[in-house]
């Protein structure tokens, strides 16, 4: 068990958003967090990273408690979040965006990242403000890899990407998975989720309301209908 959340609560000011989430992820595993808009998926990731300080509950990473640490300390331990807004530095070039995040011990070098995302190599001298949405997403993922993550958290990674690129990114996430890095994936695109994930969690109003393996989930239309509002029948 590389990451484990037990009854974690997270707040924005006074609003209680994450209301006792428990989940875990093992080495080499890909799990997804699903749920409607506003369910608390992003907030859960933010709570893990310490961006939102958890008020109650335990978060264990590699057996050690990390709840309460500041984000940079958590990131340093090997948790890496690609946020939904991507957070590309507009004043830095593509290459600077990548190198500033680089860790010496990372198996992901600049070359490696360019190999996965050749588009980035083409635009390496471009400022971060001059990228299209898809380019930004590639850069964000590439940059996260440069930090040598032990757990990678992707918040809606294929949002706004062209279908070919989605294919590409899904393939790449698959490769990352094969390299042994466990991934927590928040994604609205069920096709992507079910292609990649081993297990799924569904979150509703800040609580985990469903958990199941990929196979169970695929088979259970009722769950999708109930929690995600997908009317498969129609």
């Amino acid at each position, binding site marked *: 068990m590389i990451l484990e959340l037990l009854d974690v609560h997270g707040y924005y000011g006074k609003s209680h958003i994450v209301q006792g989430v428990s989940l875990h992820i093992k080495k080499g595993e890909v799990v997804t967090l699903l749920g409607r808009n*506003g*369910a608390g998926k992003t907030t859960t990731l933010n709570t893990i990273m310490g961006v939102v300080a958890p008020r109650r509950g335990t978060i264990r990473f590699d057996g050690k408690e990390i709840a309460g640490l500041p984000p940079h300390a958590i990131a340093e331990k090997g948790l890496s979040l690609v946020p939904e807004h991507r957070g590309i530095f507009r004043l830095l070039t593509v290459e600077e965006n990548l190198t500033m995040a680089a860790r010496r011990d990372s198996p992901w070098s600049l070359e490696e990242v360019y190999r996965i995302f050749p588009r980035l190599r083409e635009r390496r001298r471009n400022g971060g403000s001059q990228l299209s949405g898809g380019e930004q997403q590639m850069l964000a993922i590439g940059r996260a890899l440069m930090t040598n993550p032990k757990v990678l958290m992707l918040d809606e990674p294929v949002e*706004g990407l062209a279908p*070919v690129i989605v294919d590409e990114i*899904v393939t790449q996430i698959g490769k990352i998975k094969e390299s042994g890095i466990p991934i927590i994936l928040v994604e609205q695109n*069920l096709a992507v989720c079910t292609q990649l994930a081993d297990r799924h969690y569904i979150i509703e109003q800040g609580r985990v309301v469903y958990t199941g393996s990929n196979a169970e989930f695929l088979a259970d239309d009722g769950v*999708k209908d109930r929690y995600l*509002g997908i009317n498969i029948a129609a």
Partner: protein
Amino acid sequence: MTEPILQARNVVKRYGRFTAVNGVSIDVLPHTVHSVIGPNGAGKTTLFHALTGTVPLTSGQILVDSVDISTLPGFKRVRKGLARSFQVTSLFPNLTVLENLRLAAQGVDAVQALHPWRRPESFKAACETATSLAERLNLTLVRFRPAGELSHGQQRRLEVGMALAARPKVIFLDEPTSGMGVDDIGDMKQLIFSLRSDYTVVLIEHNMDIVMDISDTITVMQLGQVLVEGAPDAVRCDERVRSAYLGSMITGGLR
């Protein structure tokens, strides 16, 4: 044949030495959904920027109802009936959802906005637009919350609402469904489709499920230029489009 409501002729937009949009011409017919698709970085958003005046044109011409608006600044184009949503959410984060919508509704009326004495509440039409839009976008529950506190998906919906509130002739939606929940995507698709009766919609979308179902015309862009233009079926079957853009189309949702 009906006159196009919006015509772009040879629109070019350069950023420094880089040409993001390179001579694009499109005709948008009234009461249609005209989609613009293409790989990331093809210049779709830049085309929107240029059409709506967010950035100045490098060259080319834009006509709305045959009136040349190419040199008008963005805010004046709103009054000519163009309104847009942004790919990267752009709201008034510290104002409430209703206030966001009210301001968007009021924006078309330039003179009102400068009124230093009248109270905003007395401007009934805008308030009503705001309330009904909040309802329509399923934001009634959070209508008194500051927009910055909404979840990503809620903000995306509000983003679309901001464009609708202006009651424009032509509405530009830049990836309205990105970040939306699976359930909402269906609703949004219905919504956009229904807009067709009152407005004209220009849509950028990567969700082929939506694009193929509701578009009347699809323009496919690549490297700043138009690659293909046509009806959905023609575009879907076009080999160049398949290889440049569509791939295996897992974005289409669960099928």
